[in-house]
Structure formats: C-alpha cells, structure tokens
C-alpha cells in the first residue's frame, strides 16, 4: 500500500514520475509546500530581527494552531469532495455559547434556578453543539442533496446570526468564572502553557497526530478517500456513503467549536463577530497543503504545512510592518501560486 494518507510532507499524493522535467525539478515540485515554508521563514528571518526567537516561534505556533485545527476538520470534508464554509461562524457561536454558560450559567426556567456548569462540562457541551451543527450540514448534504457549498453557506449565516442574537451583538467580557460557582479556569485553554508551550499547540499536536492516524490507518479514513475518489463506486462497493459524509461534517463542526473556545479563552472574552473569514484561511491551508478540492487526494501532514505557511506569512508580514491591505494581496498571490503549481505537477506527474 502506498498509504497516501501517511505520506506527511508530500503535499498531494502524486508519485513523482518525472516526464521531461529533471528529477531535481520534480522533487522541488513535490515538496513545494515545504519549500515555500522554508522560503517564508528564511525571508522573515532576514527582514525581522526577532523572528527567529523561541518566544516568537511559540506565539506564531499558537496562531497557526487556530487555523490548523479548523483546517484538519476541513481536510476530511474536502477529501470527500465537499466543503465546509460554516466553520468560522460555528467557531464564533461556540465562543459565545461558552461565554454565556460561564457568565450566566444554564437557566432552568421551569425549576426556577440556574446551574453553572464546570469548565470541562462547558467544553463538552460546546463541542456537542459544534458536532450537532456539523451533523445538520451532513443532513442537508445527504438527506436533502443540497450542494455542500450552499448547505454550509446557509449554516454560516444561521450560526453567525445566532451568535449575534445571544448578546444583541455585545461582547461577553471577563470569562474568568468564579470560585463560588465552581467554574474557574476557562482562560487556561487558550492562554495557558504546559512545559512552556501554549496549550492550543499541545491540542493541535494531539489532534494532528490523531487525524493523520485516522486518515491513514482506519477503515473510516480509507472510506473517506474512497468517497472522494468516486462516490458512485464507493456506493456500489457497499460503503455507507451518507454515514461517511455525516461523520466528516461532524468532525469539522467539532473542530470549529473547539477553535471558538480557544479564541474566546485566549481573550477571556467572547465576541460574536469572532471567527469571521476563518473558513477562508482554513480552506487556503488545505489547498496549500496539496489537497484536491475535487476530493480523494490530500494528507493531514500537507494541511499542517499549509497552515504553517499561512500563519508564518501572516505573522511575519505584521512583524515587518507590511500594510494590512498588502498582506491580503500577498496571501492571495501565494494561494493562487500554490494551486497553479499543483496543476503543473498533476500534468507532469
């Protein structure tokens, strides 16, 4: 078996059978995302004096974690040939729900009192919400045959609207909890450190390892690739295609909810507009990582590298003092260049 899914670092699963290109060129093409990452790091190392310090690396990794966790969920969805535009809004709504649970608790109107769930319980409840919204996307895509782009666009609006409705657009501030209510510690999730490394980076490491393993070593992972390769053939081989689709959207929804909590926790505040356009960064990371939007080809490792490129590029440009507007232009150019190279490799391969 080639174990395409475990080929971390080979963005895209293409076998480098060089046609007229030299072997060196082919290798460069195959590892282009890694090359791009090295280039980006090299450039900013020269331009920004503090760039290569450990402290800065840890901060950047924390930012990368936010994109990468979303992108991991997105990778599963895109591998099946779908797309999930709702992740940014779901993250925003998840942060708001977490904030509300910590600040205001869970009012049990019928009984006339309010429960304040502990932080682990809050995290669990919000994750369930995210998975639920993912399942809703899955329902639309499978049962009602709505195109994933449209289904998740609808969910994007609904979740964002719901987040705004929760506070009438206001921020839930100061989410530290209180010892009396037994819900201290929410801030640790996003801002805490273990062994000097930010907690979100640990979470990313764990999730990435788990996702790469699921994609490469489990029956579920194989079926995800099969559905993306040929949905009809998968169906005729007895694969329960709808189940696979429900699962990938649920994973993506769960990841989005987690990211929403990480952001709210880091800021110790939940803002209903938080997570806006995160879906675009996540999709960009996945595509940069060599995953085909047509489905069936791509790796978690590639996605991680893609997220690193996006993250490092963003932070580096800020450090160098490039204007926000130019940052957008440059990011766009990098994404287009990545996809053009992808096409090129496919033709040569």
């Amino acid at each position, binding site marked *: *078996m080639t174990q395409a899914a475990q080929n971390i670092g080979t963005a895209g699963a293409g076998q480098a059978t060089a046609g007229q290109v030299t072997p060196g060129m082919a290798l460069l093409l195959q590892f282009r995302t890694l090359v791009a990452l090295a280039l980006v790091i090299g450039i900013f190392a020269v331009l920004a004096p503090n760039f290569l310090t450990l402290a800065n690396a840890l901060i950047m990794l924390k930012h990368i974690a936010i994109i990468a966790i979303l992108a991991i969920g997105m990778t599963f969805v895109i591998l099946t040939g779908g797309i999930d535009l709702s992740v940014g809004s779901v993250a925003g709504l998840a942060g708001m729900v977490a904030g509300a649970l910590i600040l205001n608790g869970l009012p049990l109107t019928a009984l006339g009192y309010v429960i304040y769930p502990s932080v682990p319980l809050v995290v669990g409840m919000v994750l369930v919400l995210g998975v639920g919204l993912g399942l809703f996307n899955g329902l639309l895509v499978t049962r009602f045959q709505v195109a994933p782009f449209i289904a998740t666009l609808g969910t994007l609006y609904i979740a964002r609207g719901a987040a705004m409705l929760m506070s009438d657009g206001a921020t839930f501030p100061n989410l530290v909890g209180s010892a009396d209510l037994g819900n201290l510690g929410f801030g640790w999730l996003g801002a805490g450190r273990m062994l000097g490394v930010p907690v979100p980076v640990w979470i990313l490491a764990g999730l990435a390892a788990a996702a790469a393993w699921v994609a490469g*070593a489990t029956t579920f992972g194989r*079926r995800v*690739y*099969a559905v993306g390769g*040929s949905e009809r053939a*998968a169906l005729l081989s007895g*694969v329960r295609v709808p189940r696979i689709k429900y699962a990938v959207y649920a994973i993506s929804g769960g990841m989005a909810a987690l990211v929403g909590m990480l952001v709210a926790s880091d800021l110790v505040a939940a803002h209903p507009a938080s997570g806006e356009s995160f879906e675009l960064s996540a999709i960009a990371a996945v595509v940069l990582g060599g995953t085909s939007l047509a489905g*069936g080809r791509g790796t978690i490792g590639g996605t991680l590298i893609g997220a690193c490129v996006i993250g490092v590029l963003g932070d580096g440009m800020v450090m160098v003092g490039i204007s926000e507007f130019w940052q957008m232009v440059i990011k766009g150019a990098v994404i287009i260049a990545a996809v053009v190279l992808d096409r090129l490799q496919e033709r040569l391969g």
Partner: protein
Amino acid sequence: MRPLMRAAGVVKRYGAVTALHGVDFDLMPGEVHVLIGENGAGKSTLMRILAGIESPTEGALYLDEAPVRLNGVRDAAARGIGMVHQELNLCPNLSVAENIFLCGTGAEKGGVLNRAHERELAARVLARLRQNIDPDRRVDTLSIGEQQIVEIAKALAEDCRVLILDEPTSALSEAEVEVLFEVIADLKAAGVGLVYISHRLEELLRVGDRITVMRDGQVVARTDVAQASVAWIVEQMLGEEGRLARAPAKADDGPVVLELSGIARRRDRVSAALEGVDLTARAGTILCLYGLLGSGRTELLEVAFGARRADAGQVRLAGQDITALPLDRRVERGLLFVSEDRKAQGIFANLDVGQNISLSDLARMARRGVIAPAQEAGVVQRMIARLGVKTASAASPITALSGGNQQKALIGRALLPGPVALLLDEPTRGIDVGARAEIFATIRQLAADGLAVVFTSSDVQEALAIADRIVVMSRGQITLDAPADACDEGALYTAANRANPGVAA
C-alpha cells in the same frame, strides 16, 4: 445518378491499431444506407470520419464527386453533413428553439440574439418534419422521442443533405419509432441521404434501401435491402473464423439464489423501462442477460442490486425477500455487482490496486476500525494471485493497469466479501481479446465454485460461448429464456429485435 457523398479507400490507424482497412462507401440522394456490424467492426469509426469528427489516415472523401477535407464537425455541418448521436446532445435547461440554434442562426447582429427570428425558423423546421412541438418548450419536458426529433431538426436547420443517425431507436418506444420512420420517409422524399446505424435487424430491413455489413474494419458485404434477410446479415456479420468456441453448457439445476419477480419501472430520461420481468439465477450457473442497448438489461441488473428503484416487483436472495433492503445490506448478504462503467463507477483513481480491491471488505481486515496492514496485504495478494491481475505490485496506481486488469481487480473487489451471487454488467466492455478470454475463464471458475453469476452482454458470441442459460431482453421485457445449448445466433438476434414478445420459450 451520382452519389451525394462517397468515401474511397479510407484507412484509419490509431497508433499500431488499424481500425479501418481501406473502406469504400457511398450514399445516394434520397437513400437510407444502413451500416451494420458487431462492436469493434469499425462502423463507428467510419461514421465519425463521414461526420468530420475524425479525419482518415489514408483515402479520400467526396461530396458531389468533388474531393473534400472536413475540418471538424462545424466544417462538416457547413457542408451539409449532420449527425445525430446515440446519446442525445441537447441542453435540457434550454428551449427547443434555443437548442436548434445553439450555434446561432447566422443572422445575429453583434452577438445579440433575435429570439423571434429563432423561434420562427425553429417552427419552420419542425413543420417540415410535420411535428407539433412548441419551439418554446424546455427540452427536459419533452419525451425521448421528441428530443430525438429536435436533434434531427437541429441537423436540418443547418440545411443538411447528409444525415447520419447512430442507433436512433435505442431509447424510443414503438410509437416513437413509427414517428421517426415517417420523418425519415419525408427526408428521403426531399432528397436527403441518410446513413443509418442500428443493431435492430428487423427495423433496418424495414427502413433501409441498401445495406453495408462491416467486420474487422472492412466491408464484407453490400446489397439492396430487398435481397437481404436477418439470417444473411447475421452470417455476414459474424463470418466463420470469428466465432468463439462454445463450451458445453452445464445443466441449470442448482438451488435458486437470486429471484426477481414482476420487476417493473417507468422509463425516464436516461434509462429504459421494465415491464414485469421475472428472472431466476441458480448456484453454479452462468446466466447471460443478452439485449441491445436500451433493452433494459442494465436497469434490471441495477434493480436487482438495489442501485436503482423499481416501481413494482420483488427481489429474493437465498429465499429471503430483500426488496426493501438498501444496497449496502444486500452486499452484506452476499449480492455483489460490478458496473459496466469502470472509469466512473468502478475504480478509485486515487487509490492503489490493493486499496481498490480491499475496500469492499475492509471490516474483516480491521479490528475496531483500525486496518491491520499485514492482513490487508495478505488478502489482497491472494486475490491478485487468484484472478491473475497483472500489476507490478499491490501498491501500483490502479490507473496504470490495462482495462482487462482493472476489470479483474474490480471482480476481485466484488469477490472479497464472499458473495453468493455476482452481477456483472458488460464485464468485457472496452477489453481486448486476450483479456476477454481470461475474464471468461474467471467467470467459469466462479460458477464452478458454486456462485450464481449473472452477466449482461450485447455480443451474441460472448453470450453463447460462456453462458449456461441465456435470457434475452427487448424493450423492457424478456423475449427468450433458454439453456445456451438450445440457442444459436439467429435465435438471439430475433429475440433481441422482437417488439411484442409472444410466450417466452
């Protein structure tokens, strides 16, 4: 009278393969010239050359006895050559008039459409065909027969004098065929020359004036239709040397595995109707479902497998009613299927050979959802050896394999869960002769192992060569159901062409 169009000494080579070895063909004004031959005889290639889709490697084309080079379909259309493909090429979301003038009426000013003008011209063409179709109707609201007429109208709107019809009746009902024949008669009267390709022998004896039989890239016979008969055509098409050796058919007496009764479904845009079909497949027997395109054979197989819904009828597997079960539950019970469309419905181009094979039975190679690589590799390796799949390794991309070896890998995938019945839709489509023999050997071995094998075919020789029992379908009904020993080519052709089945023998 001089011919409208003529081809002289046409040779067509694709790399090392020669599809046409110096073919002569001519078409008179007001004539229906029938072109017939088995699959791969070269008639499609000849027709594509006449229509300007491909150009000949050697030889020449003449229009009105003047030599001509056709540079593509647009050029051919401009010179009055039109073609109606077997698969309709209409945009279902556009109106009849918009489809007829998809490339414009030629009277647009600055790219601006003149809808009134289009509509008027469309109405005129349809009137010439004596068809009462509203030019404003959306094409997807038309019946298949009406859509066929629109295709012809499209060709006529370009003032075509040569019209090539490729299996025009394969999707039509009997009433629609009658309408088409009236249209053809009108076109003949107007001096249009028609090249008519069909496998339906009785039909082409009715509609044709002259007939050309092709075999192995050559014209083997040509005569006036008045002098031809079904038996003569079959004889010419198959020749002597081309016959496949027939293996002795086994007695069809194993226990019943798969039983279909009263399967019925309505025809839709893309698929044929089934009109109360009964079918029984027994363990250890190879059953061939023979029929022409549009006869309903693929639809029947898909209904049996659960890949297509029927309006009525019952499917039983090993005595149990599985009509209500979804496809994946049928797979679990040992009913497996291999599609005729390898590329779109068979292979996973993104997975390697081994992963393509193992997909149908992953659960058995995994513990708690985690694949055991050694176990998977072992199972895959055994299957590759058992079916003789020629591949460098299990890790090679499936797309690197020949069609025949891809097919073997797909059969391997279907065998992995240990089926009791195997449904193969045109298993030899697009496969070369050598690989075909190997697929046959595989099928025989599977039946010997006790499987009930059902396969579809549009090749009489193939049906006779390996089936134990042959069921012929025509227009959604079974017209013949007999042991292979009791059948010959003529009987199969006749049954496949029969419009009103009598008592199934």
